[in-house]
C-alpha cells in the first residue's frame, strides 16, 4: 500500500510541474486582464525550442531558451492585444494554430516525423537521507523544475497579495482606469504580465521535453495548455489555487494511469474516457455553481483605451 502511494506521488511530482508553470503563467496574464488562450501554443514553442537547443548546449541553458521562445510568442500576443488592442481570444487562438502547424512543419523538415533526436535530460537531484523514508521519499529524485514548482506558487501568491506591484497587477486586471489615474502605465504592467506568462508557459513546455520526456514529440503538449486554463479557473484565478488544482489534476492522471495497469477491472466499471473528462467536468461544475463573474478579473479581455478613462 505504501509502495503504491509512493509511486503515485513520485509520478505526480514528475508530471505536475509543466502544468503548474503553465497555469501560473495563465493566472499572471489573466489577473492583469489579458486572456491567456495562447498558453498551449506558448508551451509548444517552448518545448520545441528547448529540445532543439539541448542538441547544441547544456540542457539547463536549453530550458532558458525554451522560456525565451515562449516569451517571444507572448510578445506577439502582447503586440496585437496590448499595442493594437486586438481581440485577445483571436490573437491567442491564432498563436495556437501557428505553433501547432509551424511546429509540425519544422519538426518534419528538420528531423522527420518521429520527433527530435533524444537529448540529455535534466539532472535528477537526490535528497540525502530522504530516499529511505516511506512515502516522503517520493520527494527525492526529481529534477530542479519540480522543486521550483513547489515553491513558486507561494512566492507568486505573496507577490500578488502582499506587495505594491501585486496590487497594481491585480488593479490593472480589475479596473485599469484606476491604475492610470495614479500615473502608472497600464500597457507597461500588462506587457510585463504577458511576457512573464510567456516565460512560464515556455518553461512548462521546456520541462515536458527535457524532464518528462527526452525529446520533442509531434503532439506536445497535447492539450496540457488548455488543462492549465482549467486549473486556473478551478483555482479561481489565484496562484495557490491554480497550483492545487494543477497538482490535483496531475495526481488524478497518475492515478488513472496507475489504475489502468494495476486494476483493469475498475477501469471496466468506470471507463477511461470518463476519467479523462473529469478535470474538465469538475471545472465546468465549479463554474456553473459559483458563476464566473464572482471570481474572474473584472476587466478580463477588455482592451484598455486611454480615452475611455
Amino acid at each position, binding site marked *: 500500500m505504501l509502495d503504491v502511494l509512493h509511486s503515485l506521488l513520485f509520478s505526480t511530482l514528475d508530471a505536475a510541474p509543466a502544468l503548474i508553470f503553465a497555469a501560473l503563467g495563465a493566472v499572471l496574464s489573466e489577473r492583469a486582464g489579458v486572456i491567456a488562450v495562447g498558453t498551449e501554443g506558448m508551451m509548444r514553442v517552448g518545448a520545441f525550442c528547448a529540445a532543439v537547443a539541448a542538441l547544441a548546449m547544456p540542457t539547463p541553458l536549453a530550458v532558458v531558451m525554451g522560456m525565451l521562445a515562449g516569451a517571444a510568442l507572448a510578445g506577439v500576443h502582447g503586440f496585437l492585444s496590448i499595442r493594437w488592442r486586438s481581440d485577445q481570444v483571436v490573437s491567442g487562438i491564432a498563436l495556437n494554430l501557428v505553433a501547432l502547424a509551424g511546429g*509540425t512543419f519544422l519538426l518534419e523538415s528538420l528531423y522527420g516525423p518521429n520527433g527530435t533526436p533524444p537529448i540529455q535530460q535534466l539532472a535528477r537531484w537526490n535528497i540525502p537521507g530522504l530516499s529511505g523514508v516511506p512515502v516522503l521519499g517520493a520527494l527525492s529524485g526529481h529534477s530542479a523544475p519540480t522543486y521550483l514548482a513547489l515553491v513558486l506558487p507561494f512566492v507568486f501568491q505573496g507577490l500578488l497579495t502582499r506587495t505594491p506591484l501585486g496590487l497594481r497587477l491585480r488593479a490593472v486586471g480589475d479596473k485599469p482606469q484606476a491604475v492610470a489615474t495614479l500615473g502608472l502605465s497600464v500597457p507597461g504592467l500588462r506587457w510585463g504580465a504577458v511576457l512573464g506568462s510567456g516565460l512560464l508557459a515556455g518553461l512548462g513546455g521546456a520541462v515536458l521535453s527535457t524532464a518528462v520526456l527526452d525529446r520533442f514529440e509531434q503532439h506536445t503538449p497535447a492539450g496540457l495548455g488548455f488543462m492549465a486554463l482549467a486549473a486556473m479557473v478551478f483555482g479561481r484565478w489565484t496562484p495557490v489555487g491554480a497550483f492545487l488544482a494543477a497538482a490535483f489534476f496531475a495526481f488524478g492522471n497518475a492515478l488513472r494511469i496507475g489504475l489502468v495497469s494495476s486494476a483493469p477491472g475498475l477501469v471496466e466499471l468506470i471507463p477511461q474516457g470518463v476519467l479523462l473528462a473529469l478535470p474538465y467536468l469538475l471545472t465546468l461544475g465549479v463554474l456553473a455553481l459559483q458563476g464566473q463573474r464572482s471570481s474572474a478579473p473584472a476587466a478580463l479581455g477588455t482592451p484598455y483605451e486611454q480615452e475611455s478613462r
Partner: protein
Amino acid sequence: MPERLRQLLPSVLSVLLALGVCWALIALTMEPGTATKAYLQMLWGGIGNWPAYLEGAAATVITRPLGEAAMKAALLTLTGLSVAVAFKVGLFNIGAQGQMLLGALAAAVVGAHVTLPGVLHVPAALLGAALAGAAWAGIAGLLRIYRGVHEVISTIMLNWVALSLVDNWLVVGPLRGAAEGGQSITGTAEIQATAVLPRLLGDGSRLNLGFPLALAAALAVWVWLTRTRSGFETRAVGLGAEAARAAGIPVARRMGLAMALAGAMAGLAGAVLVLGTEGRYPGTLGAPYGFDGIAIALIGNNHPLGATVSALFFGVLRAGGTRMQLLGVHKSFPELIQGLALLFVAGRMVWLALLRRRNVAPAASAEVPRA
C-alpha cells in the same frame, strides 16, 4: 475606396502575406525553386491539373482534386458558419470541434443503427447530427445566460469533455462496431448504404451531396441574418446587448438560439464527414476542422458568405497540401498558411491604420483606430 471594399482588404492582404511568408519559409529551409514548385503542386492538387488535362489526360485529373477540395471546403464552410453565427450574437464559439464530434457520432449511430427508407435516412442522420451539436453548444449557451460563465472557457472545457467521452469511451466501448469477418475494426459500425451521401461526379471523385448542402446552409444563414426579424434581432444583440434589451429584444432567447444554431452547423460538419467520406465514426476524427472554423470565420470577416469564400480558398489549399508531400513539404503546410493568415487578420487594426494613412487626409492619421 468604397467602405465595403475596405472592410475586405485586411483579410485579402493577410492571406497574401501569409502565402508570401510561407513561400519564404520553404525557400529558406529547402530551395527557392522547390517553393514555387510546391505552390504549383498545391494549386493543381486543389483545382485540378489543367495543364495535364489540356494535353490529353483523363478527366479525373480535374474531377478528383476538385472533389477533394470540395469535400474539405464543405467541412470548413460548416464549421466556419458555426463560429460566424455565434459571433453575430456576440459569442465566441471555440467549441465547434466538440460540437462536430458529437454531430459525427450522432450521424454514425443513426446511419448504422436506424433502418429507414433511402429518402428519409440521410435527412434523419443529418437531423440527428444537428440536434446533437446544438445540444452540446446549448450547454455553453445556458451556462452563459444563467450563470454568466464566459463561453470561451466553457466551450474549451466542453471540447475536451467531448473528445474524452467520444474518442476514449463511446467509440472504443459501447458503440464500437462489431468485428467484421474475424477482423476487429476501429471506430463505430459502418453506416448503411441508404445513409451514404450520394456522390455527384461518379466514382472518380469524392465530391458528394455535402458540398451543395454546405453552400445552401451558408445561403440560408445569410438570408436569415439579413432578411428576417429574428436575424436582425440576433445581430442587434451582438452589436450591443444592453441596447437590444432596452429595445425590447429577448436577449437571452436570441443568444440561446444563435448558440444552438452554431452547434447545429458544427454538428452537420460532423455528419458530412461521416456520411460523405468516412462511412463510420473512425477511431479518431483526425483533422481539427472545428478549430479551423475559427480561422475560416475570422478571415471571412464573420460574414456567412465571406466565411464560405475563405472556406473554398482554404479547401483548395488543404486538398492541394497532400500533393506538396511529393516535394518533401509536410501536408500540414496549408494549416500553417491558415494560422498565419488568422494571426495577420488579428492584426486588423494594424492593416486599417496602414491603409488609412495612405488613403485619407493627414488630419485623420492622428486619430487612433477603434474597434
